[in-house]
């Protein structure tokens, strides 16, 4: 089997997508042939735990889960030799709509994040580590579990790793269907066998995390960068990307582009060049209407707003949004933004965990308002109502699910208020109301599979 994703021809340095994917390229032997686990061997034999953290801090590695928090700073809070148990948890609960880059890493280079997990555990003095993978993943689960099994068999996990005396056990923990468990404190509650409810900070998870002990939670891609940093050295790593966003970003792009898929982009790459050249532009030669930059929780940018912008954290923030999780969704001109907003809000309502009142009530309320607009029963004050609920949510809940829903909705309202006003006034979409530019099921007549089935 070969990769279902296009082989990107982007210029720029690559740390992950730099080898031909084959049936066996994910396996331990192939990874070792590419230099895998040399960083781990060197660290365990020649470096102190604090040296590893120092190198990661010096490299300026930013978290790749969405918040771009400096990984080294997170690790530095924990004192590896304070005699307490410490844990590292790899966040592989990839569920932010539009995001599927961790899935690529887990399926095609599972040993890279695993090596990073072992290095992170060594750095903070961990004896047990966890990989929390979303429950629906199948191949990605089998690949990362297979990598863990291979690592145990090769003496890279378990007692006395590589004969150095360091011991680490790793559990691959499968979720059971919950978006909010991608939030770190909810994830740890889930790992304890409970419902995934986030909790307030302080105390931070690096002070009281899993089983009430100091815990680091890092995204798959963040951990996959760790062996790269140790192999290259912080100084060399920083030569990639931009000064404030060193390294590369795995970007998963979907929606109305000609060539959706996963691409590894060196920070600082031209956003327009990425969309119009590398991804083949918009389906059917249509114009780009807007971009959801990093998962549906980030604010949309229209075609003008990405002009001259580069793909790195500073530029994305200056343009009015964020790179988030690298889950980019392109939307073609002619798409009904009212209906798209409703699809997005249905998701937030479905995933609200029900713990905090503003989110529990607000998510459903917003969906009902959008629902009646789409049905043609919108009321003149519904736009103000959506702003009101979004603002009431902002900052009043434990986690940011409700905030994000508000940002996503109000950013669409800010840009396309006229479409909402038109829909409310006329009871129908300003466009043709469709979300798919090309619907492969257009005109397809279903044949009932059963006698009497089908309508």
């Amino acid at each position, binding site marked *: 089997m070969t990769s279902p994703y296009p082989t990107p021809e982007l210029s720029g340095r690559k740390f992950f997508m730099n080898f031909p994917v084959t049936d066996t390229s994910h396996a331990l032997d192939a990874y070792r042939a590419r230099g895998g686990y040399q960083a781990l061997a060197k660290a365990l034999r020649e470096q102190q735990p604090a040296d590893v953290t120092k190198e990661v801090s010096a490299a300026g590695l930013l978290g790749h889960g969405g918040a771009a928090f400096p990984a080294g700073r997170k690790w530095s809070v924990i004192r590896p030799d304070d005699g307490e148990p410490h844990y590292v948890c790899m966040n592989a609960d990839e569920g932010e709509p539009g995001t599927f880059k961790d899935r690529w890493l887990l399926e095609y280079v599972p040993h890279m994040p695993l090596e990073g997990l072992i290095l992170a555990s060594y750095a903070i003095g961990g004896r047990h580590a966890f990989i929390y993978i979303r429950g629906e993943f199948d191949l990605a689960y089998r690949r990362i579990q297979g990598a863990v099994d291979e690592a145990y068999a090769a003496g890279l996990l378990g007692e006395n790793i590589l004969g150095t005396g360091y011991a680490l056990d790793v559990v691959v*923990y499968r979720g059971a*269907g*919950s978006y909010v468990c991608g939030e770190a404190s909810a994830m740890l509650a889930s790992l304890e066998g409970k419902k995934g409810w986030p909790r307030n900070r302080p105390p931070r998870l690096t002070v009281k995390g899993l089983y009430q002990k100091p815990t680091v939670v890092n995204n798959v891609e963040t951990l996959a960068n760790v062996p790269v940093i140790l192999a290259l050295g912080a100084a060399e790593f920083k030569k990639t990307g931009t000064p404030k966003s060193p390294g590369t970003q795995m970007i998963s792009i979907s929606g109305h582009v000609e060539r959706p898929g996963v691409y590894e982009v060196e920070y600082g790459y031209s956003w327009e060049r990425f969309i119009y050249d590398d991804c083949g532009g918009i389906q059917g030669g249509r114009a780009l209407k807007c971009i959801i930059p990093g998962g549906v929780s980030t604010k949309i940018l229209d075609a003008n707003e990405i002009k001259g912008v580069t793909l790195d954290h500073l530029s994305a923030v200056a343009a009015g949004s964020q790179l988030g999780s690298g889950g980019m*969704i392109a939307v073609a001109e002619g798409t009904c933004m009212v209906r798209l907003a409703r699809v997005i809000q249905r998701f937030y309502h479905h995933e609200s965990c029900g713990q905090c009142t503003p989110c529990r009530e607000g998510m459903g309320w917003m969906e009902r308002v959008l629902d009646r607009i789409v049905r043609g029963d919108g009321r003149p004050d519904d736009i103000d109502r959506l702003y009101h609920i979004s603002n009431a949510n902002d900052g009043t809940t434990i986690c940011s699910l409700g905030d994000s829903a508000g940002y996503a909705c109000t950013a669409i309202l800010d840009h396309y208020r006229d479409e909402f006003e038109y829909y409310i006034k006329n009871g129908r979409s300003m466009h043709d109301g469709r979300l798919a530019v090309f*619907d*492969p099921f257009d005109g397809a007549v279903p044949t009932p599979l059963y006698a009497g089935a089908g309508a």
Partner: protein
Amino acid sequence: MTQQMKNIQHLLPEFERWKERYPAGFEGSLTIPCLRRIQEERGYIADSDIDELVAYLGVPRTQVDEVLGFYTMFTRTPLGTHHLQVCHNASCSLRGAEGLIRYLCGTLGIQPGETTPDGRFTLSTAECLASCGTAPMMMVNEAYHENLTPASVDALLEELAK
């Protein structure tokens, strides 16, 4: 527990092996993996499964009940042999998820949330399965089916209906 566990006795050796990789004293963590394993076998979680798991792990019954209610992948009632879950989040909607759902409803004669009368197919909608670049897609039991077209759906359903 001295009494033989009717439902999960044969799974206990597997559960015991799992414990070896966890720090000691945190057996409660196994609640979700054990429930997944039980459901994998039977297709749903019965009341008697909960009784036995509570006794085995020593966790409060409310914890198990909460977990079963909270996570969408657990079910307390049997589903069809083939559980079709169609993603209808943003990216999939932009690539034709709505058409796919309509097509499946027509082919199977059921609406999302329903099971065919012979118990072979259950149709559900799902929120983002991280398959956005290969939309429209659906999950059939454990397996992902991507870049779906009317022809590929027909072929798949015929295969499953055999």
